[in-house]
């Protein structure tokens, strides 16, 4: 490991010891979030908690960005680039999870609660005596809503009511200009994968499109006059059966995922289902793979309607873009991760290693340098009932330190490293291009079967 200048080492040591000093405070805040799970754009209590914690730290911030989002600032004494440190506020919905809300089924089965602890922890570290005085630039502390792209019907309603433009937290932050003053961003996600060791960096994630689909039939008495009805559930069944038949045409290397849920499968067993709602997801490694799989999804949905003589309304909602890690930022993070946990506890994934899932950090990564490493600390399956954080040291404290140390590397020394990151990076698109692309991917069609 390259020896660092003594002054930077001292800054990092100060940050680490400040974080250690607030260890219990951070973990307690994290567990409070765990026990108050709220799905995307509904993180009212979580948002209030984050706001209170930032206020306790004396950090000024805005609330209510994209409904529940928060953005605070730490300013170095001199001007310079702005680095976002991000935590996600939303929970999943996994009924049966030990920490699930008994009514809503909302549960932190993806570890986002830890991200808020890390973000606050990074703030604690950077507020340590003398640190900000040595930095040129700012840190944007962000608590973002709605990373999990769920409750599509609910969010589609928010969009229709003009409360949302794009339907995930980072997408909407970008649209609202909340990232306009940010130059680069980082966040750390928890993981239970044993291969991840303590930290992992690199790899990519799938992009995706979101399908909001409604099969429209005609209700009739399911016992006495099924011949007068048009069964929308049968249309959906035919469509899903057909969808499975597409799988052999999906290339392994495209990592395509076609999956979904029926959010309404009928209203009464003795009435022919006339309104069946499917929330689907089309994921893939490349825009071409996603477009191909989406075309196949659509023709299956239409075929379901055609077969039964039903109608199908297909709304295709722009989802996430594949993740692009900034190499320079990744180097900075790796250096600090090794300092914290040792080289043997770090995994570096090749850039073509795609996780099947998706994140809206991928969207951000198309307009600025971004990293999205993973930290251990959890057990079980991501998004499963058994996903639990059992090592808060690794799930909150170490990643908080790592991010604070990265910020110090980037903004110390007149922000020379941040300047290097920016000079080496070439984002794929501007914010305007990104927004135009996403709006262009939003399509609606009503197919009348027969």
């Amino acid at each position, binding site marked *: 490991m390259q020896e660092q200048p003594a002054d930077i080492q001292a800054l990092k040591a100060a940050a680490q010891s400040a974080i250690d000093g607030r260890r219990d405070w951070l973990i307690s805040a994290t567990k409070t979030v765990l026990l108050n799970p709220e799905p995307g754009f509904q993180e009212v209590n979580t948002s209030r908690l984050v706001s209170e914690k930032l206020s306790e730290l004396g950090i000024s911030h805005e609330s209510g960005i994209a409904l529940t989002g928060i953005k605070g600032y730490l300013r170095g004494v001199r001007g310079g680039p702005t680095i976002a440190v991000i935590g996600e506020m939303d929970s999943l919905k996994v009924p049966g999870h030990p920490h699930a809300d008994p009514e809503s089924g909302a549960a932190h089965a993806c570890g986002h609660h830890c991200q808020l602890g890390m973000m606050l922890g990074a703030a604690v570290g950077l507020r340590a005596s003398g640190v900000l005085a040595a930095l040129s630039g700012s840190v944007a502390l962000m608590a973002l809503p709605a990373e999990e792209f769920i409750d599509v019907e609910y969010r589609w309603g928010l969009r229709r009511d003009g409360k949302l433009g794009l339907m995930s937290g980072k997408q909407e932050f970008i649209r609202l200009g909340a990232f306009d003053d940010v130059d680069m961003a980082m966040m750390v996600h928890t993981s239970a994968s044993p291969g991840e060791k303590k930290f992992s960096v690199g790899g990519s994630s799938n992009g995706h499109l979101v399908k909001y689909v409604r099969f429209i039939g005609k209700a009739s008495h*399911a016992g006495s006059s099924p*011949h007068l009805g048009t069964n929308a559930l*049968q249309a959906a069944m*035919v469509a899903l059966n057909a969808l499975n038949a597409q799988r052999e*045409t999906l290339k392994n290397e495209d990592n395509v995922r076609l999956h979904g849920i029926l959010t309404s499968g009928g209203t009464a067993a003795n009435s022919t289902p006339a309104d069946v709602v499917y929330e689907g997801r089309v994921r893939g490694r490349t825009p071409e793979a996603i477009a191909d799989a989406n075309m196949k999804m659509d023709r299956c949905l239409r*075929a379901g309607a055609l077969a039964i003589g039903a109608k199908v309304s297909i709304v295709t909602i722009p989802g996430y873009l594949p993740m692009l890690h900034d190499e320079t930022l990744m180097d900075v993070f790796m250096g600090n991760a090794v300092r914290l946990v040792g080289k043997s506890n770090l995994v570096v994934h090749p850039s073509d290693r795609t996780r099947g899932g998706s994140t809206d950090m991928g969207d951000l990564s198309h307009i600025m340098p971004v990293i999205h490493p993973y930290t251990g600390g959890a057990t079980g399956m991501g998004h499963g009932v058994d996903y639990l954080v059992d090592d808060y040291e690794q799930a909150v404290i170490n990643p908080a330190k790592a991010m604070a140390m990265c910020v110090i590397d980037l903004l110390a020394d007149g922000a020379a490293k941040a300047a290097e990151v920016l000079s080496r990076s070439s984002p794929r698109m501007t914010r305007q291009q990104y927004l135009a692309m996403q709006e262009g991917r939003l399509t609606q069609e009503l197919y009348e079967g027969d």
Partner: protein
Amino acid sequence: MVERVFSTLPGVGYQGSAMPAMTVEELKASVLAEIDRRGGEAVRIAKQILDTPEPGFREQKTSRLVAEEFRRLGIPHEEGIAITGLKGMLAGGTDGPTVAVIGELDSLIVQGHPHADPQTSAAHACGHHCQIGMMFGVALGLMAPGVMESLAGRVALFAAPAEEYIEIEYRDDLRREGKIEFLGGKAELLRLGAFDDVDMAMMTHTQSGESMSGVIGTGATNNGMVAKRIMFTGRAAHAGGSPHHGVNALNAANIALSAIHAQRETFRDEDTIRVHPIITQGGVAVSSVPADVRMETFVRGRTTTAIASASRKVDRALRAGAMAVGGSVTVTTLPGYLPIQTSPALTHLYIDNARGLVGEDGVEPMPHRSGSTDMGDLSQIMPVIHPYVAAATGYAHGADYVVKDYDLGVLTAAKAMAMTVVDLLAGGGRRGREVLSKHRAPMTKKEYLSLMRGMFNEETFQE
């Protein structure tokens, strides 16, 4: 109703001798005695046909056998009508109605049937061999001395091809080659005019005794049907190396089948819809994405309206299969059979004779049957009956359907029909004329042909 002018075409029977007219009872007694005396010939014919099973429009050997028997018995006849069909004629002493007695030539194809052809699996798993035996039984009985001379009118003896509507692809190819227009034997005989000089018709079908309490059943109705020849077209590709370049026609068929099943809840019970496809080609090599998958199906139902509605649902399910995989489907809808309606007046005469043979309790009314027969077509334009004799065991069209009782399955059945012919044509054909005058045919031959031709449809669907 316009009084029919009966034609006098040649036929054996009345030779101009001046025998005294016999009463109906005397005539029937002669007929029954003759069938008892010569019945062995009819049973032999039935058993010979059992051993040479041939599916429809391929009944070459069976047709030759029937022709030889017509020649042996000195019955004038035509051959090769609708490829393999035959029509013999017995003429009465005076003019009168022409009554057809029909037997069917064709076998089914049922693998594993004890009498199946080892090469083709053709098998008489529906008892048609007995029908030819019965038809000859009737002929033998009516050829008893003095009988035909006493009758007014004629008896047309039909060996009709292709009642089982199978091998649709083969037959549709015959159609495309101009060798047939309709894929069922009686429809084709009708089209060719073979029934133009026939006024009414009867045939008797064997039936498994397990499904009847009596031994003779009458009055059943049958489903009508349309048939479909279906071809899903995809794109071949290496199924291992590059399935993403292929378009899987078998998946299209599979989705379509699933979609057809999803329609079933919309079929009304009273319409007795049956949709039962088979896949006749499901791909050619397992390592190649199937690009040419063929299916055949019937769409059966109790009324032509119900059939049309179900047929439309099947078509949209087939299109959906093609749409889902991005392939195409060609659906050829072929007119099949019309629902049967038997003549109450003819049935009444028949029941009296049947009761005389098997007793009061031996004859039972039969319910609606969800199978189909091209006697249904004939029933749309003339009075017909299509009774059943419980001479078989096992499931019809199954590997275990075997005729056990040839006395009943050939001879009793022949007797009941021959006696009914005597009733119709004795006494100057009075009762035959009565049946005709009471009958209101649903359609004329011209209307029938136009209805059938209107059912033809061929579409290729590709999104």
